[in-house]
């Protein structure tokens, strides 16, 4: 694999860039792999990457029914933060955030991680109390956050409307090293690195069945034939219930459409990410200049990757109220993704009733930020066959015990 650098780009430029090779190979599936990962989203690819990097397991295939990164990984609003309330969440999200800090260098692929700062606005007394609590929790968890007052908010976000009239801004939970990254680049960077380690990323290959013998997984059926494996990781987000059914077990996951939209590009006007949970909307500005906007999920379960108009309208209302100057900007594009929601809004990284079959799902509305940490932890779980400290609390059996990791406590919607 050719290393990427400014120098390499200049050199290739002299030859009209005809010399660049493939970022990842496009192999046909082999008969058998040590590990098969289903789903070439960020979480699946990162799992494979850390299996190789941290545990030397490289005889790995990643099977993707469409194109790699084409699920929620390529549809999200790229917010990265780790200011979660509960200990297990803070641990895995902060692990992810800290891996993001050096991910471009690790992968030799610029994922454009931009720790531009993130604010969660408090617009009711109740929210003020909630976010103060989060700051105390974060400080004990080793996550750097602070509570800031309205003046500081205005300073960080000059375009914000601080004094209501309906919901004045009372302050914010601020994570200075939260931010964004380029979603496609995260998937592509991991894919390139996996391919480089000799792993096979097989696109247009849908898993249609899971084969097992004596309570253990033996392989999968796919649209490109059957493939054997010793271990299987299901990392398919909104389609988890479908895959679990193939494996003969059930998971407490609901699939809902979550929408996002962008405005036409304008010159830079907002350097930070702002989330306003009372009014249900959040916004950041991409490097291209588009205002990237999102809100809550649709209220009904479905599998179509588009959403209802009502939600778009609610979200835009919230943001026009919060940032009055966006009123004359225009919505350029809206889209949706199917998110996998658990009852406690926290993910599942777990062994399953089927031997050697592992599941990583339930990231719902907020898993982009978790990709490196989730891959790291899932690789450990799969390599060792037992949970490590990062995954221990995220077992699928926690619902049976009532041991929830409830993040809806801290924020209405967790992006």
């Amino acid at each position: 694999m050719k290393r990427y650098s400014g120098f390499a780009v200049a050199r290739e430029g002299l030859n009209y860039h005809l010399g660049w090779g493939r970022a990842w190979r496009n192999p046909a599936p082999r008969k058998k792999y040590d590990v098969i990962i289903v789903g070439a989203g960020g979480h699946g690819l990162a799992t494979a990457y850390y299996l190789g990097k941290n545990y030397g397991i490289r005889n790995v295939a990643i099977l993707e029914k469409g194109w790699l990164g084409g699920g929620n990984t390529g549809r999200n609003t790229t917010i990265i933060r780790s200011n979660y309330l509960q200990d297990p969440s803070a641990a895995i999200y902060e692990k992810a955030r800290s891996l993001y800090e050096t991910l471009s260098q690790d992968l030799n692929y610029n994922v454009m991680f931009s720790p531009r700062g993130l604010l969660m606005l408090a617009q009711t007394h109740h929210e003020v109390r909630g976010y103060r609590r989060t700051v105390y929790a974060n400080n004990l968890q080793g996550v750097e956050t602070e509570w800031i007052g309205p003046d500081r908010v205005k300073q960080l976000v000059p375009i914000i409307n601080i004094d209501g009239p309906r919901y004045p801004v009372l302050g914010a939970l601020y994570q200075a090293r939260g931010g964004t990254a380029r979603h496609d680049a995260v998937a592509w960077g991991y894919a390139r690195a996996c391919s480089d380690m000799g792993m096979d990323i097989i696109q247009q290959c849908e898993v249609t069945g899971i084969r097992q013998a004596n309570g253990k997984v033996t392989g999968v059926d796919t649209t490109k034939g059957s493939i054997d494996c010793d271990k299987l990781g299901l990392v398919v987000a909104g389609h988890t219930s479908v895959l679990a059914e193939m494996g003969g077990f059930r998971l407490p996951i609901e699939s809902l459409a979550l929408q996002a939209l962008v405005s036409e590009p304008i010159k830079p006007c907002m350097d930070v990410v702002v989330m306003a949970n009372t009014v249900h909307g959040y916004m950041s500005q991409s490097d291209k200049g588009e205002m990237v906007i999102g809100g809550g999920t649709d209220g009904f379960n479905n599998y179509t990757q588009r959403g209802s108009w009502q939600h778009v309208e609610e979200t835009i209302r919230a943001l026009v109220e919060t940032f009055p100057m966006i009123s004359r900007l225009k919505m350029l594009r809206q889209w949706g993704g199917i998110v996998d929601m658990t009852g406690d809004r926290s993910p599942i990284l777990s062994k399953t009733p089927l031997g050697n079959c592992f599941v990583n799902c339930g990231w719902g509305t907020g898993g982009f930020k978790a990709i490196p940490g989730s891959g790291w932890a899932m690789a450990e779980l799969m390599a060792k066959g037992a949970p490590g400290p990062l995954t221990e609390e995220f077992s699928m059996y926690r619902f049976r015990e009532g041991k929830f990791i409830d993040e809806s406590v801290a924020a209405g919607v967790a992006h």
Partner: protein
Amino acid sequence: MSTRLARGGRLIDRSKPITISFNGRRMPAFLGDTLASAVLANDQMMVGRSFKYHRPRGIMASGAEEPNALVGLGAGPRFEPNQRMTTTEAFDGAETASQNHWPSLEFDIGAINNKFSRFLPGGFYYKTFMWPRSFWKNVYEPFIRQSAGLGKVPTDRDADRYEQAYAYADVVVVGAGIAGLTAALGAARSGKRVIVLEMTPACGGRAVVDGFAIDGQPAEGWVAAAVDTLRGMDNVTLMTRTMATGLYDHGYLMAAQRIADHTPGDGRPKQRLWRIRTAEVITATGAIERPLSFAGNDIPGVMLAAAVRDYAVNYGISIGDRTVIVTNNDDAYRTALALLDAGLTVPAVIDARPTVTGALPQAVRDRGVRVLEGRGIAKVHGGKRVTGVEVCVQAGEGAMIEELGCDCVAMSGGWSPVVHLWSHCGGKLLWDEARAMFRPDANRPPLGADGRGMVRAVGAANGMLTPDEVLTDAHAAFGDGTAPQTNAPDEARMEPVWIMPQGAGPKLRAKMWLDPQNDVKVSDVQLAAREGYESVEHTKRYTTLGMATDQGKISNINGLAVLSDALHQQIPATGTTTFRPPYTPLTLGTIAAEARGEIFQPLRRTPIHEWHEAHGVEWEPVGLWRRPFCYKRAGETTHAAVNREVRNTRTNLGLLDASTLGKILVKGPDAGKFLDMLYTGVMSTLPVGKCRYGLMCNEQGFLSDDGVVVRLSEDSWLCHTTSGGADRIHGWMEDWLQCEWWDWKVYTANLTEQFAQIAVVGPNARKVLEKLGGMDVSKATLPFMTFAEGQLGGFNARVFRISFSGELSYEIAVPASEGRAFWEKLIEAGQEFGVMPYGTECLHILRAEKGFIMIGDETDGTVIPQDLNMAWAISKKKPDYLGKRGQERSFLASPDRWKLVGLETLDGSVLPEGAYAVAPGVNANGQRNVQGRVTSTYFSPTLNRGIAMGLVKHGPDRMGEVLDFPGDGGKVHQARIVDQVFYDKEGAKNDA
């Protein structure tokens, strides 16, 4: 140069001159002009800079597909960036400014990127800018952000207002070209309710420009007659300036109508969003012309052939004196004819097809114009304006045969149907090999609520290109009888040309623009394919092809074709990217509409709201309500006001507006059984006239709401909920009644707003009620936790003898309409007893001093009643209630759960809200161990010290132990575990 011709221009009114300005230059124009035609009339071809390389950009098109011509329009609170000049109507005084350059349009520093374009191919930023690490955020990214972005940032609050409206139809026809009009006439005559939407101010579409006859009448006359007929029918609504922006599930169509966009400040709303529910949509949205990919096809002066024709016919504009036409189809010859008719020169038509025979080319030849068969353009000359083209053999590699001087190039690569609305809800496309286009697959339409197709495409939108095909197709949608006929000539087959010349080398390919706004070239798409970004979505995202403000309207198909070629596969195997709403960018203000400022969300007011307003209230938002946080007297701080309210209520008399409390009536033969399931306690056995405090849990067992339940009569109960919880709990009740226990005979009604409710609290509470008179409120007649109904001071009242403060207290409900009068009566009567109103903060302190829990403070969705030492409120006898099974799970039944206790700082200070009690050591993830947290914390004026409640591991067993709570700035607060009841532990005051 481009200029206004002496004659012509269907759409302009030469008797109505207006003036606009562009970059400060005043330009004469006419009413009916678009901003684009207005500046073209004044020889302003270059209007902007491209996104990445900052190359000069001219107007390319005449409609919604325009990729380049974006300007900032207006100023101050009416400034709007990224206005598409080709679709924005010019008005007198319109101020426009070009975008994305510094310091000026003519001289732009950013154009340095152009010089280095060779080193900035598609996706280059993924390969570089990685070192040193901190440079991405601090150096590279700010630079990229500054040079990216297009329009300027609006700074002011929008001066305009926007509206929304609803409409219902059997059929919505989108597009009022001849296809749309034909389909609309058919639908209307069959008696359907029809809405016709046309995005431009005028109807007729392309036909009126192309100028053939329909049923013996000039197209223009035919269109006028059709429009008149439709306007005359009661079952038809025809709206111009109205863009169907998106189709959503179940026939929900959004359409944005421009009302005062072209008459700013006239008092009307700027735009109106129509939300239309329709049984069927007919898309008659026409087709968009495709550019050709030759080197230099982005230089200002290179335009779409039909656009050149539009400007001549519709606006009386000559784009250039000498226009070279380059095409792969017959339609572009119409442009040659239109230009010749206008007295302009066409040096040659360059046609990529080896032999050119059709009637239209013949007509052009007959007028003495050379038709160069099998030829292409190797290269365009010029910088900020076209100066000439090099002609080559299309089949070759680009060697020049001859050079043609010209100041305009009109190109046509064929047509692509507008399939956006068809596709928004999942309609599928097929690749039409003969016409080289994706068009709607009638067998796979988007499905409506009934599972049948809800959209049909007609005319050019359905891939029909010649006028007769179009009319026949559109007529078939509803019509019987014969379709209208035209005299338009037959057209010969187009021949797909994806790059020009066919064998162009890398140097030429690096100058062939696919997406002129985002600077995506043929070479970029080929690079993406080479690097393995093979899926069309990968290519799009890697190169940014089609991600510009035109969303690939003119670039996508050419890009797909180049990609397919690079991958050696057929175009349908490549497929398209997803078509997403809106069709063209939609103003956010139009979407938000009236919901802004004070009416962003409806404000719920209690009947006493205005009184509070007039008495120094400090508000607190609670759901959609506002509740008094406290009432400030002149010169008083919030803190002082709260303390005063607490002290007064404990010693004299306090009044609380409790009207926001949820009041849900539950009635029916099974109401008792229902409430026994809903609450953890037993409500069915509550005697009539009695009150009982109840807890509600969700199915997981977590506490979700609390309140006092009153048995009003044999079959009806009144359930009080928290203020914030009323709607949620009512919904929760209905959920169970409608979905699970649908056969139970229970009705619920949310009466929250029907009653004003006032808490009368303090040692003098009974005295003031006795003074009002009319009801016996004595301890004997109305003991604690009972209720009575009757007349109080002349008001119909329900009096509940309950207390959330530990004081002697009554909550009194009167009809909402009498709430204000009753409140004022109490204030008046209470004067001699020291009455003062109090707010929510005082309420919180009063309850905290008594150790009462508050939903949302002591609970957060993870707390069960047992954690709060409230097992007493859970019936042991009942077989079931919502949450019972959840609470039996091992983690919820564990003795290690954190439990509620009181907390007292050693120094009397107030514990910080939400602080955690630390335990020794760290966990496996290196996080500090914790053993509890503060749930409520206040300064108690009664005890003159800080008091708090918190959840602590094994808390009730650890009375007297001291815990450490790290606070802000490294300070550690120490607090002792104590009983949660701080004040009047025996309850003597309430018992008064």
